[in-house]
């Protein structure tokens, strides 16, 4: 049992079930990110933890105490909303201390807490302003200050960065991570941005259509996605997914694929359990960074396979160069060093790190475990 336990939780609106049997458990001090496309139920789940939405069945426990039906104010949580939800008629200072005031904290304590938080977030010079006089980033800080001042057991963040411009978003992301490391508090964070999910979390729950698709550490989610949805949702550019056939060569299983001209090629699979399944149609998943130029290949990998095929497009992105080619009728993206000697239209020797490859069953869309 962890610090925040979500046990068999479901949510229905009438006959429409929006959450199916959600099971998530995290320990104290963890950073849980709920990630998924819009409409996947992540915000609903967050609102249920907050107590803003009822629970249809199952239960949610914070620090061993079941909070079903408990008023949000008594759950010892604080929430940062997507729109910041600052009270427009109050000053920044009043906004931050409103929660303390409602909980009956005496004035001197409130002022001390305000001073502490304002200093921490570097907003001490803004305390007498109204929210309408603040920039987006400043509002964001005030919203965080309002949550921090309460010193709750669990912080809830509902897409807090999605209203900021790209640069500020990256800065605030780092600040949130710093804050988490400093305070060591449990955080539940909702986002649709898989990069935010990867960078911030200690645990990720990838959600789609009301189901938790996979719950695990960022590394587990990234390296061994449990199904095709997780594989394609997490990672940018997303994982290359190629329909291939299992073939046996020299007694070991290979993935048989074709290049742009229809020539058959083979990549040795690391998964021994596919031996004896010759002819089986599977989907081979390879991350772009596992396909490189030969010099850039991971030297620690025990299974680098070479593929000579024609380069489609090259997209230099500064730090990396993305190279597109065609395999088994699909566009494949490879991530190479910026100075890789690769020219569009010319044949090139691609190095594929098959240690990092995963295999999916095309019918169930589940990963075939090694």
């Amino acid at each position, binding site marked *: 049992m962890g610090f925040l336990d979500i046990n068999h939780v479901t949510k229905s609106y009438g006959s429409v079930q929006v959450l199916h049997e959600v099971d998530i458990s995290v320990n104290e001090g963890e950073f849980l990110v709920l990630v998924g496309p819009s409409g996947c139920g992540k915000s609903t789940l967050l609102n249920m933890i*907050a*107590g*803003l939405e009822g629970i249809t069945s199952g239960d949610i426990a914070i620090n061993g105490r079941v909070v079903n039906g408990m*008023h*949000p*104010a008594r759950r010892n*949580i*604080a*929430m940062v*909303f*997507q*729109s910041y*939800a*600052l*009270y*427009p*008629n109050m000053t920044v200072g009043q906004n931050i201390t*409103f*929660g303390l005031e*409602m*909980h009956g904290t005496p004035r001197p304590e409130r002022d001390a807490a305000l001073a502490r938080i304002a200093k921490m977030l570097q907003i001490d010079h803004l305390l007498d302003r109204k929210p309408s006089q603040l920039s987006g980033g400043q509002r964001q800080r005030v919203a965080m200050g*309002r949550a921090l001042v*309460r010193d709750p057991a669990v912080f809830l963040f509902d897409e807090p960065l999605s209203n900021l411009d790209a640069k500020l978003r990256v800065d605030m992301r780092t600040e949130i991570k710093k804050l988490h490391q400093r305070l060591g508090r449990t955080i539940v964070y909702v986002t649709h941005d898989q990069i935010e999910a990867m960078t911030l979390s200690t645990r990720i729950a990838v959600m789609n259509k009301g189901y938790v698709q996979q719950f695990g550490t960022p590394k587990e989610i990234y390296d061994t996605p449990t199904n095709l949805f997780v594989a394609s949702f997490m990672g940018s550019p997303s994982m290359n997914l190629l329909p291939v056939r299992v073939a046996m060569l020299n007694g070991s299983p290979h993935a048989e694929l074709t290049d742009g001209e229809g020539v058959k090629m083979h990549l040795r699979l690391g998964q021994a359990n596919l031996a004896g399944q010759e002819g089986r149609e599977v989907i081979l998943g390879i991350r772009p960074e596992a396909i490189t130029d030969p010099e850039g290949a991971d030297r620690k990998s025990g299974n680098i396979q070479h593929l000579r095929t024609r380069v489609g497009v090259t997209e230099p992105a500064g730090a990396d160069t993305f190279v597109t080619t065609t395999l088994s009728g699909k566009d494949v993206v490879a991530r190479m060093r910026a100075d890789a000697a690769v020219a569009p239209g010319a044949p090139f020797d691609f190095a594929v790190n098959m240690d990092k490859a995963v295999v999916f069953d095309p019918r169930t869309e589940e990963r075939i475990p090694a």
Partner: protein
Amino acid sequence: MSTLTQEAQLARAKGPIPTPAPTQDTAVRTGRVARTFIYLVLLLFALFYLLPFGIMVINSLKPLSEITGGNMLALPQDWTIAPWLSAWSTAQIGVEPTGLRPYFLNSILMVVPAVAISTMLGALNGYVLTKWRFRGDTILFGLMLFACFIPFQIVLIPMARMLGLLGLAGTTAGLILVHVVYGLGFTTLYFRNYYAAFPTELVRAAMIDGAGFFRIFWRIILPVSGPIAVVSVIWQFTNIWNDFLFGASFAAGSSAPMTVALNNLVNSSTGVKEYNVHFAGAILAALPTLIVYVVAGRYFVRGLMAGSVKG
């Protein structure tokens, strides 16, 4: 000036000459002519609409003999405020020579609580209907809207019966009740549409902060309700102040409102008809609504737009 800028100016002068096609200049010039015309027409219409009020003011400031002499449109030869004093404090209202003063007070005593209560309840209704939604709330709101379309005459007899049962017949309190009940449909409509645009996340944030139903209303919702409150107050004030039918039906005699007293002043069938006093009385009766409009009129339009566009 350096040679460089001189050269630049020379180059600019050699550039293509602007064609005399429609430019910003001609557009402004034709606009100015059109605008003058528009202002002229508007001024004429304004004068035309102000004419009746002007006649009233003029005639309230002259002795009766000048009116009966047939000079209604002329300016007074003897300027006098006697008709105003008479209308206010000595004119015969029904059988008592009290002037309009006590009835003016009646109207104030009726309109202030009625406006305050109906506006507050409307705000509360709007808050509940948008932020504390429940099963069937839209149907309930639809039913409340019906109140806006029920003609006054229909409710006269049931209302008289109700007031009788409550022991409020013929009192100012009874009249306040009638106006609150009748105004609720409108005030609820205004506030509901206004609050529909108010972000629900703020209410949720306040809930997590530990504020309850009334605290959220009082501390979060009401402070930002200024524009729509002005709309509601003006609307309710004007309607209630100007109401004659309910006043005449439910509060006759000494608790009658201003409108009923004005009618009694003008329609008295004995003695000489003092038109100058009647004019002064009519202006007195219209003055409060006029003042409310002048003071808060621009908020009225602004608030009405905000409520309707975003709702």
